[in-house]
């Protein structure tokens, strides 16, 4: 297995590299100009040219590519065009933890909620409870997330005023003390994490329900009941454990979705995370930052897939890697 992981990682290197090269050329060939902002009345026509020169954009594209390749191989992704020449690694170092926090919380909430709903649905199959949970899950599953987010803001931040609509902390939160600061942060994360996880949880609930229904009909469940075990033990210990096998593999696969979900959540809730960095970089044609972001998200997706495959092997001994 170690050998398998190692081989997969080795294959990942040229893959990521290919993605970066492709991105490099696509964004340069796409219309738009990082210096476009400086082309406006009242700004000397020389400025855009000087800026382009500073960014090294007046070289032919293959020269730019070779230069870029040289620095990336030394681990230098360059400096951001649109963010005051901050090294892109620094920009990402500030943004990534925020996105990772949201993503991890969402992942946990996704599975906890999804599994709970799925199990209840399966155990109470075809009852009113099951039906309403199913309809509810499908209702949220088919709702566009950005719209859902805005509705949640209108309801909870504007009408009821129980949760804040934006930012990571309240003004003056530094003075709340460490515990108060932490609570304040959690309070700000409730709405975005809810929005992001409800959609995913609804999908997972459907998986769990299906898988659980299959397991409940197995002979060993009947045996467990015949032994006189409590129903709770039967469902959670004997049933759920087995039903979770196929679900676990969803973890790796859902990572890219959670990351792309974080993209607009961050814009709506004004979190300075990777999503916002990416969106703004694209609009500003901030080439170095776009490439570095592609690198991060590409790596995460490839790792996510790897994790999914490895988990398969871990939970199901029939699969040999």
């Amino acid at each position, binding site marked *: 297995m170690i050998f398998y992981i190692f081989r997969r990682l080795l294959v990942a290197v040229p893959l990521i590299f290919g993605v970066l090269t492709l991105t490099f050329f696509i964004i340069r060939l796409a219309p738009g100009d990082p210096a476009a902002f400086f082309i406006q009345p009242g700004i000397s026509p*020389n400025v855009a040219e000087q800026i382009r020169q500073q960014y090294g954009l007046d070289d032919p594209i293959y020269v730019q590519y070779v230069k870029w390749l040289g620095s990336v191989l030394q681990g230098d992704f360059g400096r951001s065009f649109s963010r005051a020449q901050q090294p892109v690694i620094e920009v990402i170092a500030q943004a990534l933890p925020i996105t990772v926090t949201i993503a991890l919380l969402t992942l946990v909430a996704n599975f906890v909620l999804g599994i709970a709903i799925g199990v209840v649905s399966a155990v109470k199959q075809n009852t009113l409870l099951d039906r309403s949970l199913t309809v509810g899950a499908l209702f949220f599953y088919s709702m566009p997330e950005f719209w859902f987010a805005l509705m949640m803001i209108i309801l909870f931040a504007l009408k009821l005023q129980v949760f804040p609509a934006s930012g990571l902390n309240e003004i003056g939160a530094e003075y709340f003390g460490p515990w108060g600061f932490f609570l304040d942060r959690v309070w700000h994360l409730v709405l975005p994490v809810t929005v992001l996880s409800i959609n995913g949880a609804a999908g997972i609930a459907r998986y769990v329900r299906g898988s659980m229904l299959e397991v409940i009909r197995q002979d060993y469940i009947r045996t467990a009941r015949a032994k006189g075990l409590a129903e709770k033990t039967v469902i959670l210990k004997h049933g759920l454990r087995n039903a979770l096998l196929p679900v676990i593999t969803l973890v790796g696969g859902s990572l890219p979705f959670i990351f792309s979900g974080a993209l607009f959540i961050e814009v709506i809730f004004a979190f300075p995370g990777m999503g916002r960095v990416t969106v703004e970089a694209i609009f500003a044609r901030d080439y170095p930052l776009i490439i570095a972001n592609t690198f991060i998200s590409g790596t995460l997706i490839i790792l996510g897939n790897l994790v999914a495959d490895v988990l398969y092997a871990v939970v199901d001994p029939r699969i040999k890697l």
Partner: protein
Amino acid sequence: MSLASCSSKERQAGQGIADSTVVIAMLGDANYLNPVIGASVTSSNVYGLIYPGLLQSEFDESTGLLNFLASEQSLMPRQPGIPEKMNTSSAVAKSWNMSDDNRTLTYILRDDVNWNDGTPITSRDFRFTYQLYADPLIASPRQQYLAELEGAQHGAVDFSKAIQAPDDTTLVFRFYKPVSERLALFHTSLSPLPAHIWKNVPSDVFRQSPLNQNPLGAGPYRLSEWKKQQHILLESNPDSRLPGPGTIRRIMFRIIPDYTVRLAQLQTGRVDVVENIKPEDFDGLRNAAADIDIKTTGLRVYDYVGWSNIDQDAYHRDGTVKPHPLFGSADVRRALTLAIDRQGILDGYLGEYGELSVTDISPSIKWAYHEKLEPYTYDPQEAIRLLEREGWLPGPDGIRRKDGRSFSFVLYTNAGNARRNFASVIIQQNLRSIGIDCRLDVQESNVFFKNLRLRKLDAWMAGWSIGLEIDPLDGWGSDLEKSRFNFTGYRNPRIDELCNLAKAELNPLDARPYWIEYQEILHRDQPTTFLYWIRETQGFNNRIEGEEVNILSTFYNIDDWTLNPSATVAR
């Protein structure tokens, strides 16, 4: 609420902070807190409070002219009714003297003002900083301000002659040609950097310098904290004498990219100021939990429908200029203006927060504005008459035709502008009803503006924000290579003449006759269909007092604002 577990003492501390902090929602973060290279709106709002200025500038509403003030002199008498506190000058200059030939401007500076580290602000700081503004490696977006200085006529400012600092309090600017006093003051009053801090920063790493994140200034506020992409916190600068410490203890610029969320935050009182509120949201604000005032500033922004006056294919092929097959004739363009129900668009969207526009000279620029020109009224019958006179007759499909070409085109606009989307749909209907087929297309902003610059679009809808100095040659000049923003390809030698004549006048008021004729010509030729001026609207929480918004900026006198404690936060 959920902070119930905090001790009440902690909460009180937090509440006290909120009571002495005004929170301003901004769309995007600042890039550089440095007047030489800062380019975003947030940047200039922030560094304007941190750095000192040579002069103080004011917008004179009775004339629409910029007024410049030193601590003991002003270009024009000040308007009555200026709040008392604003009489303390924020200008480093004490007085100035323009030579009789209008080529030498000499400032006398105050000798009692210091940077925050105690070093005196001297004329050498100004001279030093102007060298940075001129440096091509630094690529300052304000290089245009140096265009009249000695040496600029040969391509590079000659600093040995152009700017001199014979002693600490004397600063001399020399121009290669006579310049009006107003323009000279405007162009020589760029903010300085402290030379003793910046002198060892090489040009090629100027933009990367950590000093950009940690500015040393002398203005009413200083930087307290900058959390990238989250907020910029300024605190009142107790040492400031330019004009003095800001009244409100803290100003927080909070970055909230999404408009709906900015609005919600204003409604709940978590944010005190939001700029550019859309008219459709006014009702919501009136009924909001927080008490909100809506203030409007002057007319600086207008929308227009651009028609390519020239046949772009021919122009791009070999540089020949011939009229556009559809929009080449002034009569046709006038017919299009008559056919568009501009008042209807205004009533439907902007309401009282807009005004029909006649040309690109704003009614707020009173000294030059032609009050007697009436905007064309909506008159489809007259439009049809003009079109038929030009030979555009209805074809079998109901679309007008001339010489086998049907009157059909695509109207482009940029994505994400609700107002323009609204207008474009009405324009499409209006034109359809007189037999013109107009299809709509929306392009991503970057792509859209690039296509405009390359003169690739036949018809489009866009807007301009005008400068307070009238200088429209870039947009209408006959030399299409030089006039980068003449997207329509409009050419009228008289317009070039008028612009140059007006520019050569040393007193702007003497240029009024030229601008009057200019407006008459544009009104007649309709190189574009001018739609409407937009009154920008800003929402203020009522706990702010003393705010004076004007055409220069929403935050024009922010250092004089006061906060009414806990008016809304306590709810």
